[in-house]
C-alpha cells in the first residue's frame, strides 16, 4: 500500500474558532492506482491534498507514505520525501516565468543533487516524453496552456516519483487540451505511476479507476469505475 491515511483530522484555528477541515478521513491507495477526489470548493479536498503531499501536517491520525510513517518527520525529512516520492501538478501550472521549459524541468533534479550533464539529459527526456521535445528552450510565456501543463508534468515526473499529485490539472485548460492531458495521465498510470487527482469536473473524474467524494471534510468512496 503506497498511501495509507487512517483517521486523519485537520483543524484550522481562526482566532478563538476551531474550524474542522478534515474529519476522520481514512484513505488507502495501492501502488499503480488512479484515484480522483471530487468535491465542491471548501469541501477540504485541497487540505487533503496538502496532507498527502507532505506540505501540511494532520492534527491527528496516522499517515504512511510508501511504508514510511510521515507523522512526526522533520521539515527536512518531509522535503526529501516530497523530492523523491511525489510529483506535483497545479491548476495554475506554477512554472518559473523567466526560465525555459528545460530549466523548469531541471529544478527538482538540482535539489536532488544530480550533475548538470545528467540533469539536462533527463529533463530533455522528460520533455520528449510529454511531447515537447521541440519546445525545450521556450519560456512559459511562449507556450499554450496545455503545453505549460505538460511542462509541469514533465517537471513532476523527472525525478521518477511513485506518486503524481494533481490539483485541478485541467482547471485552466480548454476541453481539447484537457482531453490530451487526461490521455497523458492514463499513459503514465499504465506505466505504473500512482495518480491522485483533485477535480470537480465529473468527465475528468470518470477517467480515474476510483472516485472518492469529499464533502464538508468527510470522504465517501463511490466505488470503482468499470475498466
Amino acid at each position, binding site marked *: 500500500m503506497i498511501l495509507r491515511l487512517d483517521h486523519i483530522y485537520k483543524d484550522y484555528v481562526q482566532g478563538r474558532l476551531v474550524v474542522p477541515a478534515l474529519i476522520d478521513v481514512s484513505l488507502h491507495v495501492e501502488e499503480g492506482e488512479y484515484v480522483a477526489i471530487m468535491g465542491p470548493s471548501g469541501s477540504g479536498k485541497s487540505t487533503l491534498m*496538502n496532507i498527502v503531499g507532505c506540505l501540511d501536517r494532520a492534527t491527528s491520525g496516522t499517515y504512511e507514505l510508501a511504508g514510511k510513517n510521515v507523522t512526526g518527520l522533520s521539515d527536512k525529512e518531509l*522535503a526529501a520525501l*516530497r*523530492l523523491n516520492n511525489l510529483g*506535483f501538478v497545479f491548476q*495554475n501550472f506554477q512554472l518559473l516565468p523567466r526560465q525555459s521549459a528545460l530549466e523548469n524541468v531541471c529544478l*527538482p533534479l538540482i535539489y536532488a543533487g544530480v550533475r548538470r550533464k545528467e540533469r539536462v539529459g533527463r529533463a530533455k527526456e522528460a520533455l520528449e516524453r510529454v511531447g515537447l521535445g521541440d519546445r525545450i528552450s521556450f519560456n512559459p510565456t511562449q507556450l499554450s496552456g496545455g503545453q505549460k501543463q505538460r511542462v509541469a508534468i514533465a517537471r513532476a515526473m523527472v525525478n521518477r516519483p511513485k506518486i503524481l499529485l494533481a490539483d485541478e490539472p485541467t482547471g485552466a485548460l480548454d476541453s481539447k487540451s484537457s482531453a490530451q492531458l487526461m490521455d497523458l495521465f492514463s499513459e503514465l498510470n499504465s506505466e505504473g505511476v500512482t495518480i491522485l487527482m483533485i477535480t470537480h469536473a465529473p468527465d475528468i473524474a470518470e477517467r480515474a479507476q476510483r472516485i472518492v467524494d469529499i464533502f464538508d471534510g468527510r470522504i465517501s468512496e463511490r466505488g470503482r469505475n468499470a475498466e
Partner: protein
Amino acid sequence: MLENIRLAFQGIWSHKMRSVLTMLGIIIGIAAIIAISSTITGTNEKIKSQLVGSGKNTMEVQLYEGGYPYTIYDSSMIPNGIPVVSDSTLSSIKDLKEVESVTAYCSRYLSESINYGSVTISDLYMYGVDDNYFETCGYVIRTGRDFLQEDYDQFRKVLILDEDAGRTLFNEENPLGQVLEIRGVPFTVVGIAAEAQKYQPEIESVEDYNIYYENSTNGLMFIPKASWPILFNYDEPENVVVKAVSTDDMTRAGKKTADILNKTITDTKSEITYAAADLQGQVKSLQEMQNTTNIQLIWIAGISLLVGGIGVMNIMLVSVTERTSEIGLKKALGARRGTILAQFLTEAAVLTSLGGVLGVFAGIGAAQVIHRILGIAVGISIPATVIAVVMSTAIGLLFGLLPSVKASDMDPIEALRRE
C-alpha cells in the same frame, strides 16, 4: 551553488533598473572608500618618495649630541674618543645584508668665505671624501673628472664643486683648472658634481620647509679625504652614508651601521654618538597625521554602505513577497529550507558584490577626477580594492539574511495559495 549564482545573475539582469537602484547605495559607498583610499595611498607614496626615497635609498649615519646633529665648526670641537672610521669598520658595515655600499667622510661648515675674482661665496660645506662617496650618495660628475687614485695617494690639492657652488663662482666661465684658495691653500678645480636625480621637494607648509631646508647651504666642496689634514691639521671623526638595498631596508641599515660605529667609540661616556637620521620615522608620523583625517572619511563612507545595505534588505524583502509562489513551488518540489535560504542569500551577495565591483571602478574614476581637479596624488591600493569587494559581499550576506530567512520560513501551502 554555481546554479544559484547563475540564477542570481539572471534575476539581476531581468530587473535591470531595480537592481541598479538597489546597488546604488553600495556603489556610492564603495566608490567613496576607494576614492579616499586612493588619495591616501597616493599621498603616502608621495611623502615617502619625497622624504626618504628619491630612489637613492641613502641614509646618513652621523654624530649626534642630545638629539641634534653634531657639526664641527673648528678644531676645538673635535670630540675625544671618536676615532677615524677604519677600513675594517667600513668593510664590516659593507657586509651587512641591508647595505649595498658605504662611504665615510669628514665634513665641516666652512666659516671662511671663498673668492674668485670679484665673486665671494660663504656658507659652504666642506667634504673630505673617499672614492665611494659620489657613487653612494648618488652624485655624478657633470664636468671634468672624478678624484683619481693618485689624488689620494699623492695628497693632491684638487677640488670638486657641486653645481650650486660652481655656478655661483664661475657663472659661464669654464671652472676646470681654476684655482681657489681655501684657508690660504690653493686648490685646483677638477670637476663639477651633481646629484644624478635632482630631487626637488615640494614645499607646502612650514613643516616641509623645516624638514628640507634646515641645513640649507650655498654649496658643497669636495676634496680627497687624504688631503683633509692639509686644511684642518687633524684627522677628524667621520660621518657615514650607507646606501640600502631597498627603501624598506633603510631604517635597519642605518641602525646597524650606527651600532657598529658606536662600538668603535673608545670614550664610553661620550655624549656624542652615531645615529641614523630617522627619515622613515618622520615619514610615518606625517603619514599617520594624514591617515587619521582620512580614516574619519572612511567611517563616513562606511555609513553610506550601511544605508546601501538597508536598501538591499528592503528590496530583497519586496522581492521575497513578490516571489511567494515561486518559493512555495520550490518547497513543494522538494527544496529544503537551506536551499531556499542559500538561493536568496546568494542573490543578495551577488547583487552587492556586483555593486562593489562597479563601485571600485567608479571610485577609481572619481580618484582620477580628484587628481585632475585638485592635483592630489592618487594611487590605487590593491588591498583596499579587495577589502572593498569583500566588504560589499559581506554586506549582502548580512542584510540579505533577514529576507532570506523570511523566504525559507515561508509555509508552502500559504505560498502556493497566494497567486
